[in-house]
């Protein structure tokens, strides 16, 4: 966790130092490709983990309901919060 944040900060410093370089405007594409690679390997790990696959059918449905509820609740609450924050910011920039 600590090293991840350090890597992020290191990247930010590198990006800031080289912000004039044109190459860096393509970083977004590199991020997308790496995300896809990571998803693929996460899939490989999930698919080859027999314990996860075995338990999947038995407890998967309950987990699915709970996961979707957690996501739905947090997303709905956060969307409301965003509306309020966003409106405030607009008002502030107008004044």
């Amino acid at each position, binding site marked *: *966790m600590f*090293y*991840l944040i350090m*890597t*992020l*900060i290191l*990247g*930010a*410093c*590198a*990006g*800031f*130092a*080289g912000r004039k*370089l044109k190459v*860096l405007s393509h*970083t*977004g594409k590199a*991020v997308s490709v*790496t*995300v*896809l*690679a*990571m*998803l693929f*390997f*996460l*899939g*490989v*790990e*999930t*698919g*080859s*983990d027999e314990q*996860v*696959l075995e*338990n999947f059918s038995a*407890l*998967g449905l*309950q*987990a*699915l*309901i*709970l*996961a*979707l*509820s*957690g*996501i*739905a*609740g*947090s*997303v*709905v*609450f*956060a*969307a409301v*919060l*965003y509306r309020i*924050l966003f409106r405030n910011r607009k008002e502030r920039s107008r004044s």
Partner: protein
Amino acid sequence: MKGTVLTVSVFLLGCAAGWSGLADMEIFGEAGDDVTIYLLYLLMFLVGISVGANPNLKKILGSVSPKILLLPVTTVLGTLAFSALASLLVSGCGLADSLAIGSGMGYYSLSSVLIGQLKEASAGAQLAAELGTIALLTNIFREMFTLVGAPLLCRWFGPFAPIASAGATAFDVCLPVIVRYSGDAMLPYAIVSGVVCDMSVPFLVSFFCSF
């Protein structure tokens, strides 16, 4: 939409490759086990670069305010509220169990171990193991749905939605997709929200396990 279909297919392709044994990571020894971690580090570095090189960096940093803390608080409250409702649908676990599982916030390794341990004394070994497994799957699903659904969540519910959905994973595994779809300006929100949610997990899980 194209992005979502692509992400789902790549993930399923990986599942199929792992299940069929076509992609056997054991060949590469320990390096094969850790390949996702290395990729995560690479991602963090790339995300760092894209933020550091962002011409609007000053504006982004200027927008950081204590109000940012409201995001993790609403994320946790929303998760708990809907997890409570979900306990009506799930036959296996009661209200407190649902809340304990929900407050894993996507942090599946910690929440499943905690629930498995803490419930053993009160609920017995078998039920505790079951609840631990449900917690594991629930929070893995949460992380995966966020990775896969981030573009849609962002379009339908605004840039906060992927951060809320990611919960505790907003500042590690899910950070790259959040920055990709919600924008660089959401990076401080994602980090603060992820860290606060992450810290809330051990407290909330132990609290709800005590009932």
